[in-house]
């Protein structure tokens, strides 16, 4: 219905008042002549909406049905144009805005980056800037293929990316590569040493000479699998030792008690700094820019002006709000402290399997002991005489 209403507004229509004894006859005559009427209301007299073209054909019908017709209201674009025909400045203004918007739609005004977690936004933005994707560039000048190539070469962490230009926004979608720590080169001989001390649980050795067996207690840095093989017949061979060695390990840490936590409270005072940004030019909408709060939280967000979804304009409104806070230190109870340290340790030992957690409190010290199961393989190269 909205569309029909808009269409009617665009074409223009007239609200008419029909005075007469038999407006029914008028309606019937109209329908027979295929004159389209809508929104017919009957109070004392009848009002109806009719399009401009049809209105011109009403003269004959009004005579036949003995009805008199008056115009109450003229609605729509044609009447508006007629009314403002002499106002040149307005016409120029409307046309000018239309032209400016049209020209502006040829440029890219915003760069949107989706999908980065480890790669910093600034780096991507800088690289895109160097590759020619920046606000204020002609849309057709952006060669998405070469931009993609350049970025893929310059940023090794990228595994996939795409550049799409939607309206006036360049949407850059990226996928990151998980870069593993450099593995020990496979063709180099090496030994395996213990990453941490513990009790060996499982020792699966694929290559190399096993020096330990399950149940052994090892120290950190102790050689577990040797890459030097001494045979009776072949002499000394150097191999790349490999295998899985799982051990039960203990990790302990002591913390000072009591522990404190910071609690933030809003005082209710706030200050806002708004600014208008046109391209890279910033217009301040505030006078006193100093924030005199000792502790504060800053909330900031940017509202870009846009027509519809795709057509983003190079105009943005930046809100900056500062909320004053008071920070007070509160003593944690023992239970809270233990939980806090557990959280810390859990995060630290993320990659191991935690079997048991224990804590001791003695002389204002909190000692946390973690029992874990983990792979303690660490490959270490060694010097050897080449053949």
């Amino acid at each position, binding site marked *: 219905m909205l569309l029909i209403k808009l269409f009617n507004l665009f074409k223009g229509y007239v609200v008419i008042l029909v005075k007469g004894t038999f*407006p*029914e006859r008028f*309606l*019937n005559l*109209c*329908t*027979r002549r*295929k004159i*389209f*009427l*809508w*929104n*017919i*209301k*009957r*109070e004392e007299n*009848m009002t*109806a909406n009719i399009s401009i073209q049809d209105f011109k054909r009403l003269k004959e019908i009004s005579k036949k049905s003995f009805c008199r017709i008056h115009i109450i209201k003229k609605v729509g674009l044609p009447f508006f144009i007629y009314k403002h025909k002499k106002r040149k400045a307005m016409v120029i203004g409307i046309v000018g805005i239309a032209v400016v918007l049209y020209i502006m739609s040829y440029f890219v005004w915003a760069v949107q980056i989706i999908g980065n977690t480890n790669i910093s936004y600034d780096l991507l933005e800088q690289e895109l800037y160097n590759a020619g994707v920046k606000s204020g560039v002609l849309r057709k000048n952006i060669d998405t293929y070469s931009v993609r190539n350049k970025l893929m070469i310059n940023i090794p962490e990228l595994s996939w990316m795409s550049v799409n230009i939607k309206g006036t926004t360049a949407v850059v979608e990226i996928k990151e590569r998980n870069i593993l720590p450099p593995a020990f080169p496979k063709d180099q001989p090496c030994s395996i040493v213990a990453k941490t001390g513990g009790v060996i649980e499982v020792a699966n050795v694929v290559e190399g000479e096993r020096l330990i067996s399950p149940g052994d207690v090892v120290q950190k840095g102790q050689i577990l699998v040797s890459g030097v093989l001494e045979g009776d017949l072949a002499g000394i061979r150097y191999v790349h030792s490999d295998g899985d060695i799982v051990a039960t390990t203990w990790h302990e840490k002591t913390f000072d008690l009591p522990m404190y936590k910071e609690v933030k409270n809003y005082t209710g005072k706030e200050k806002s700094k708004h600014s208008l940004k046109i391209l890279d030019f910033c217009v301040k909408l505030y006078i006193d820019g100093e924030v005199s709060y000792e502790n504060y939280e800053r909330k900031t967000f940017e509202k870009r002006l846009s027509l519809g979804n795709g057509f983003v304009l190079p105009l943005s409104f930046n809100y900056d709000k500062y909320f004053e806070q008071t920070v007070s230190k509160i003593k944690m109870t023992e239970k809270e402290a233990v939980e806090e340290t557990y959280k810390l340790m859990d995060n630290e030992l993320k990659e191991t399997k935690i079997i048991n957690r224990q804590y001791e409190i003695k002389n204002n010290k909190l000692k946390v002991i973690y029992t874990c199961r983990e792979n303690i393989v660490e490959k270490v190269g060694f010097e050897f005489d080449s053949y």
Partner: protein
Amino acid sequence: MTKGMKTLKEKPVKNFKERLNNIFDMPTDVILDVPKVTVTSDNNVVIENFGGILEYSQNLIKVKTKSKIIGVSGNRLVICLITDNDIIIEGIIESVRWE
């Protein structure tokens, strides 16, 4: 009374078009110009295939169709749209009756 009974028992007279329609099992409102009345809730009535308006006031709209007269009564009735075939009536509708 007897006359009334008689008319009830009599088979309704069908013309050629109706009989043809019966044979081919076509929807009646498409082949014959029989009025079709759609009532949505208590605020919207659409009458298709109507002949003309007989009476129009705020409380009653009478519409002529091929066979009978349809009277729509209610409050604040507005003819939302009228063409040579269809009429859409909006307002608070109390009854739709064939007279």
